[in-house]
């Protein structure tokens, strides 16, 4: 039972370590998804939001962690 619990914890931990990083990534993906849905004729806008948003999230999250 403990092994199963540890395995489940490990599976969740694969993707979520710092909760705020995971939430910010999801927010960027949602924004990109909204853009792709509203402006399907400009898919690269969604791509740009996704790429630049994730880079900004990474940089901001690490900078905050460094200040803590």
């Amino acid at each position: 039972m403990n092994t199963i619990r540890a395995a489940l914890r490990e599976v969740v931990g694969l993707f979520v370590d710092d909760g705020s990083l995971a939430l910010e990534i999801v927010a960027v993906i949602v924004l990109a998804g909204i853009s792709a849905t509203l402006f399907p004729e400009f898919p690269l806008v969604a791509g740009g939001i996704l790429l630049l948003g994730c880079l900004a999230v990474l940089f901001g999250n690490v900078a905050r962690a460094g200040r803590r």
Partner: protein
Amino acid sequence: MITLGYAPATTAAFLASLVEAVEALTIVLAVATVRGWRPAGLGALAGFMSLLLIVVAVGPLLDRVPVHLLQFVIGVLLLMFGMRWLRKAILRSAGVVSLHDEAAVFANETAELSEQARRHATRLDLLAALASFKAVLLEGLEVVFIVIALSAGRGLLAPAAGALGACLLVAGVGVVVHRPLARVPENTLKFFVGVLLSAFGIFWTGEGLGVAWPGADLAIIAFAALFLGVARAAVVVARRPRSAEALS
């Protein structure tokens, strides 16, 4: 249209699996040191067989998922997984988080098993095998995820070959040297694998959203270069306040 072929997926799977295999080997070696190779080997074998069962069970299900949905889901998971690795590697490079030390992990695991030996002498072989099983299963789960994710829409062969190559290499070296592989530059590997997985994550998530990336697969290289540049800048930024504190 120019494509990159299988090289990026194979390389990413190889490097990521190298890190995970080294971590699993450290525990298996600790078990072997305290209780011998029999429980260590049996536990590792049971862990490997469990992983094989998971792959056999999940693999065929993936063929039934529509490609765009599969690309999107895998892309999102890869982004979360890759950026998590990259964040941790950046913080370790900046000295904010301490480096992973295989020698220390080996010493801790050995001490814990020796302590268990004193308390549960009769059940020790079972406990030792269980520790070995858990190490292979839990670290192996990450390898399985990486292989499945990197194979999205292109077949398991290339990333599976990379992962298998890394596991065989680490197992071979481990059997020869009988010591944890503390010299593997784990954080550097995690840094570059985090960059690669994040780049793949952006690519697949975008494809899942209907984005036709300029240059097709070549875009992955551009994304990786961008992530690498931002990650290096983030190391400098995360380090700066600590240096200022030290000077004041």
